[in-house]
């Protein structure tokens, strides 16, 4: 009975497994025995794989070519894969052993990637890397006091505006921007208030802290103290202002500038080229405006700074060479290339402090101005609990279900949800 099924089954299974077994004990049950074989003998062919976003592929290829030219002692076989910074965590952790040796990642993924064993600890030329890059960017690449990635560019949001509609004095304060009469069909200020990344700029403005002073304390969030209430009250007034659009995401912002129905909006460098194209000579960008709170004080809007980093795969076969490559991709020259080609703000100290060079790019210099007021986006896993409640709070503001009467109560639930633990 069942001869054919049973025999065919176990045969195919057994054979396929016998074939596949060699691979399996590499990363499977054989503990500790197979440490990587770090090789740096010259003359050997080193195979490395690099991941970056599709739009960066050409640029990466150029950088890698130059890397090969300057590192003649080894023969390199470098291949490329398309995985953008935002997808890095998911792709790497799906199968670390198959992931690229060097990959671009967004700084908010670093803690989880490190804890799940996806990132190689950076110890080669560590002092130099720390000395060369801005403090905030190094902080974003560090987990538990150890460096795990190479900073490549900084990323935060700031304000774009239409010079024909708003003057340089106008954009200093959000209240002046909104007070200006630009006609019925023009939105004066576009903002995505239901996205925690942007929304937090109001809370940070009043001095609230997400996860404590260093953003690493998962039991602390004070968005519901009296400062948080001030921020919340301001936001409630804001969404009731007809000149303010609280649900403007990238697409609406671009459309708004394109059709001339938007005067100012908050977004980042990734939209700079498009917006410049729409506004032409009227294109301008600067830091976020100040806001006037109900207690009479005027405060500067904060922001959440994110960084683009390059990481080395923890299971790479060639850690030394992979580190060299990652360091190369994020060195001063290549950061300059990124700045010139993609308007990415450098993290290299020399470049970041070179106000003259930066001023060539309106968006990047605006980013640099805003960066001073920004908080480094925390990467502790608890931050995963922040986005959904923030979105819910933003939606509550937009649909009018959050009022000044129940604000305190809603903020309490907000904070409770952010700090909640699973069981």
């Amino acid at each position, binding site marked *: 009975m069942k*001869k054919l099924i049973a025999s065919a*089954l176990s045969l195919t299974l057994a054979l396929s497994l016998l074939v596949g077994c060699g691979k399996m004990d590499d990363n499977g049950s054989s503990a500790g025995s197979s440490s*990587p074989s770090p090789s740096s003998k010259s003359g050997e062919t080193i195979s490395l794989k690099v991941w970056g976003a599709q739009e960066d592929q050409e640029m990466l290829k150029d950088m890698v070519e130059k890397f090969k030219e300057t590192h003649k002692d080894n023969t390199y076989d470098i291949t490329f894969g398309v995985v953008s910074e935002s997808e890095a965590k998911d792709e790497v952790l799906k199968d670390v052993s198959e992931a690229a040796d060097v990959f671009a990642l967004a700084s908010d993924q670093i803690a989880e990637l490190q804890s*799940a064993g996806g990132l190689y600890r950076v110890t080669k030329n560590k002092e130099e890397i720390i000395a060369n890059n801005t403090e905030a960017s190094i902080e974003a690449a560090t987990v538990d006091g150890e460096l795990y990635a190479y900073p490549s560019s900084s990323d935060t949001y700031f304000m774009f505006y239409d010079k024909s509609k708003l003057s340089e004095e106008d954009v200093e304060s959000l209240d002046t921007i909104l007070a200006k009469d630009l006609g019925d069909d023009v939105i004066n200020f576009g903002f995505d208030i239901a996205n925690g990344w942007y929304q937090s700029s109001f809370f940070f403005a009043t001095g609230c802290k997400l996860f404590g002073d260093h953003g690493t304390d998962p039991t602390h969030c004070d968005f519901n103290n009296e400062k948080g209430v001030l921020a919340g009250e301001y936001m409630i007034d804001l969404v009731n202002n007809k000149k303010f659009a609280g649900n403007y995401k990238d697409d609406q912002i671009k459309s708004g500038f394109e059709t001339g129905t938007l005067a100012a909006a908050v977004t980042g460098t990734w939209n700079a080229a498009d917006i410049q194209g729409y506004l032409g000579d009227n294109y301008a960008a600067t830091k976020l405006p100040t806001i006037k709170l109900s207690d009479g004080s005027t405060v500067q809007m904060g922001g959440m700074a994110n960084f683009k980093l390059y990481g080395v795969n*923890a*299971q790479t076969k060639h*850690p030394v060479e992979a580190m060299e490559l990652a360091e190369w991709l994020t060195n001063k020259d290549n950061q300059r290339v990124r700045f010139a080609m993609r308007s990415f703000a450098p993290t290299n100290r020399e470049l970041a402090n070179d106000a003259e060079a930066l001023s060539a790019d309106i968006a990047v210099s605006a980013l640099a101005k805003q960066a001073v007021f920004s908080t480094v986006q925390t990467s502790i896993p608890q931050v995963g609990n922040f986005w959904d409640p923030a979105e819910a709070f933003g939606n509550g503001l937009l649909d009018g279900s959050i009022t000044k009467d129940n604000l305190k109560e809603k903020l309490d639930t907000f904070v409770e949800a952010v700090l909640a633990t*699973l069981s």
Partner: protein
Amino acid sequence: MSQIDYLMMPWYKKIPYRIYIGIKGIVLGLIAFIIAIPKRTVKICKTIGGGVLSYFRAFRYGDIKTKLSFIIMGASNALRGQIIKGILFLIGEIAFIIYMVKVGVSQILGLRHLGLVEQGWTFDEELGIDILAEGDNSMLILLYGVFAMFIVIGFILLYISNIRAAVTAEEIEASGKKLPTFAKDIKDYFDGKFYKTLLTMPIIGVLMFTIIPLVYMILIAFTNYDNMHQPPGKLFTWIGFGNFKTMLVSNGLISSTFWPILGWTLIWAVFATGLNYILGILLAMMINKKGIKYKPLWRTIFITSMAIPQFVSLLVMKNMLNAEGPINVLLKNWGLIERSLPFLTDGNWARVVVIVVNLWIGIPYSMLITSGILMNIPDYLYESAKIDGASPVRMFRHITLPYVLFVTTPYLITQFIGNINNFNVIYFLTGGGPSTLEYYQAGKTDLLVTWLYKLTVNSKDYCYASTIGILVFVLSAVFSLIAFRRSSAYKNEEVFQ
């Protein structure tokens, strides 16, 4: 209670009575099922025991060749002339032994702890960098352990068939007949045992792509494989029923998310199935009504929406319903509204919207399926009802609906279960949103399945995800069990009344 009594009842008594009958049916169904469990277990045990006993007997009374094949598989066949068959058995045995010695044993033993050594860093003087000391990967240990278990089961089946073949060969020899040649064996697989030939490949496919992954995922529910224990960086291990406790009875965030989502999943499944069904029948009736022209045209219009890939039509709907989307734009341009309607951003709106959009997708299906059945309803039923002065509503309730229901009950049940697991509509339309302060990693329109998906993809809480998966399974299983039992019980009831 007789039919007359029931019909005489005022409507407000009828409703509780129906509910009472319904609950009674569910309870009775459950009781019947539970009562059946020990009986079945005994039966299965008896079968297995009988099998084992018969092999003992075969060993005791068999000749030396048969006895030998208990150790060297295929010996009985090979020594009696069925050389190829014997060798095939032997190859199977050798492959299995090699496999077990090489990796199998350690893979199965790995299941005990799921890994003990966590990965770490050691400083390498020569290279001047920290070097990764690889640790155990709990996930792969579990997966390979499951694999190894299946290989062992496969081998046991092979072993059993070996003994059976040995005994059969001995019996045939004893009776003085000629043993079938290998060619004849093969031939038999295209006739008497044709079902085995046809089933082999599909079953291997199902094993590989459904059963093994499923067993692996079910086992995950009994570990602590969550965001904080992700391999290869961290180890996870067995924690028994802890996740079920957290999910169902703790007061934590995850259980206060589970129950409301379960509630919404059921509401959604009832509405999505029921409305689609009823409205589909009505649409089919309208198209099939006498005197309505261009029937194929009407049908084609509605069917077109079925042919468009669901993710396309859903993403289109999502964009149309956006706060800045064309529907809001049109309404604003016509001056009907000032502010955008919060189709997908307000919890209650969004819940209604997903049900309505699902109508757009689902009505054509039930229209298509029921229209054929409608045409088969004999005309004289309607004629006589008309003569009795029945209203159209009455005719629908007492003729059309029962008739269609009778034919399509299985379809309706699969639809309901399909809707409990309806991933596409929710994921593409709202992505589970809008977010709410009350839930963990879920929004107001999330069903259990989409929540499960988010838990695996966004927060990597695999253990909770697979706990939900198991609970969803229990839900579907209990429901279909009751539904099938009820529908057969229903027929019996008719007889008695």
